[in-house]
């Protein structure tokens, strides 16, 4: 569950979040749409702990993770994040990228989980390749696998299908939809593409100039 209470964030005079309050229950799948520069990514990053809000509280699964006196680091928030640029570490193979998110898991179990994820993403053949040896679409699959690897209770997607052709986008959209449903996580999916929002989310929220407008 995600609760935002009075979140405010300014970048100079630009309002990225203007007293945003939102409650997302478990298993909910929310899409956040809006024009470029409206502050959608900023809101996501605040939830993830990658940005610090100027005001307000973030509560995840009943635990306050961000308020004026508390800042829980991103790694301790139980979040899986798929970045816009995939963000695969270039010096690690595909399997090492995914296993990194399973650090702390017993090796045998981690390997088993890795095999399962690669299989689900149809990426088993990519196991020992480096990021510069795979295509953009394949990189997105690996990024998704990495986000799902630690069984997060919250999944965040920041425009994950940018710059992909229609066919590839549809394939990946289906993959995302299937895996998010199977994971039982609550999800926020940021996009400016209404079709994507409609496919993956049960509720679509419109975000403009730092404020949520229901759709």
């Amino acid at each position, binding site marked *: 569950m995600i609760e935002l209470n009075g979140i405010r964030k300014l970048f100079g005079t630009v309002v990225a979040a203007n007293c945003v309050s939102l409650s997302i229950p478990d298993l909910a799948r929310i899409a956040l749409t809006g024009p470029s520069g409206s502050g959608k990514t900023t809101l996501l990053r605040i939830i*993830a702990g990658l940005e610090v809000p100027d005001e307000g509280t973030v509560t995840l699964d009943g635990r306050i993770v961000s308020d004026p006196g*508390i*800042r829980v680091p991103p790694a301790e928030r139980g979040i899986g*994040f798929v970045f816009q640029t995939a963000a695969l570490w270039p010096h*690690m193979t595909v399997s090492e990228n995914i296993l990194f998110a399973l*650090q702390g898991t017993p090796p045998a179990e981690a390997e088993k989980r890795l095999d399962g994820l690669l299989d689900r993403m149809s990426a088993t053949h990519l196991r020992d390749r480096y990021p510069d040896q795979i295509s953009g679409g394949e990189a997105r699959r690996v990024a998704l696998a990495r986000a799902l690897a*630690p069984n997060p209770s919250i999944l965040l997607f920041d425009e994950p299908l940018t710059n992909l052709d229609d066919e590839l986008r549809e394939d990946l959209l289906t993959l995302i939809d299937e895996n998010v449903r199977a994971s039982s996580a609550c999800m926020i999916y940021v996009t400016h593409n209404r079709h994507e929002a409609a496919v993956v989310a049960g509720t679509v929220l419109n975000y403009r100039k730092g404020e949520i407008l229901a759709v």
Partner: protein
Amino acid sequence: MAVPFLSFSVTSRRPGLVSVINTIVLALFLIIVIGPLAGLAVDLARLVLSGTAPAAFASLFSDRRIWLLVQSLLLAAAVAAAGIGTGILVATALWRKPAGITFAVLLMVLALAPVPPYIHALTWSQAIATLNRGLTALGSAPLPATGWTVSFWVEFMAMLPVAIFLSYIALASVDRTLVEAARMVRPDADVLHAIILPLAAPTLSAAFGFLVVLSCTDYSVPSLFGSDTYALDIFSTYSASGSAAGALVAAIPLLIVTLSVMTWCRLGIRRLAQTPNWTAGSWDTPPEFPALIRMAQEGALALLGIQVVVIFMGLVLAAGSLQRIATTVQFSAREIQNSFLVVACTILIALPLALAVSRELLREDRYGSLWWGIILVPLAVPAPLVGIGLISLWNNPAFSPVYGTFLMPVFASVCRFTPFAAVILFVQIRSVDPALFDAARVFSRDTLHTSCRIFLPLLAPGLFVASAVLGALTLGELGATLIVTPPGFGTLAIKIYNYLHYGAAPEVAGLCLVMVTATLLAGLCIVTALLRQRRTPGTIAQISQESIP
């Protein structure tokens, strides 16, 4: 931009271990690097407040000094402009050459960059004397052996390797996609002047400023050829008065100029850090330039070749035989050993300091600006003053385990050169896709593990380059080392200068060859690391290319 690996894990309002370590390292930087300079400034302030201000204040802005400063700046600007111009021609010429030639050229310039200016002055003086004998025999007028013209020429040749390297990086930092878009509609010569050079202008300006500072603070080349510079006047004041405070006062105008120039350079450095993939070298379809430009490019390459020949031939001929070189090396084994000890320790101490500071340089707020100011100061202070400052700070019974040991020459190099390493690491951090750091913060389960597995590997090329630069600069450091070197502990640079003094040319040449060999190896590491990094860049350009199916 989010500052990487600066995570405040305030689950219980206590700073995380990484933050604490970071704060300690920053404090060490301030003590080791800024402490000596602050001590000098405090001494000066104390003198002024007690009413015994150094006499140098009285004549600080005299006509003579102002004219000296103007002369020095003009020489430095001319040297920098010629250097950057030649650097651009060499860099653009390399676009059409095979990768092996590019590799060899980069290696050569990196090896020559740390050769002390005095060696350039001596080898060129001999070369000019030889040329003049030939010209005289042919009945022609000899070339001028003194004056501003020859001073400019030798200073330009001494700075040429650094100028070429910086120009190469500046041009390689231009986004190829933008260039290719222009090449679709205009000839390559137009693209060079209308697209590439304007895009590279901020970083070329930074390189120009850096060369101006280097040239301003060197007096050894101009003084050999009878040209007086402001840097020489500072030492004259120091010699006349024996007062470090007086010398610091005399250095104020030069400090103001160099700090201003370095602040201006900062803008270009930040620009470099934002642009993608500056390790890219070869072109799939090299540009075609008109004959005039190609001739100028070949001429620039020939100039570099002449510089290499003069230095190496001068050193090799003076060294005599391999036997003599071996004897010299054997006789100087202790100094060579000491030098490499100082290099090793300087790298081990300076790198963590530089890494901590480089993260502060990323900050967009006023603290970031403050840190930029802090790291630029050591670059502008003359070396002997750094040495005196180190004595003021460390020559204290409380620090007797440190003072009087080899750590003092190490601190001298750390004080002078850590800022260079910090800037290099700043550039490296900025060139990495920030999402990679963000992803690490999200998926990290163990801070130390994440630092070792993610952050440091992403910074590895920068660490290599910084280490090689620190090593090369430390090998040649003399002014501060001499002031603080412990008894019985000589270095290669001190020995070279001692031998120069009593004209032991073969021994000097032999030792210089040792130094050049060491810097060649360091250059080999840099170039290899940079070219290997192209395979798995993780840089912004690579990421944008990944998005194209």
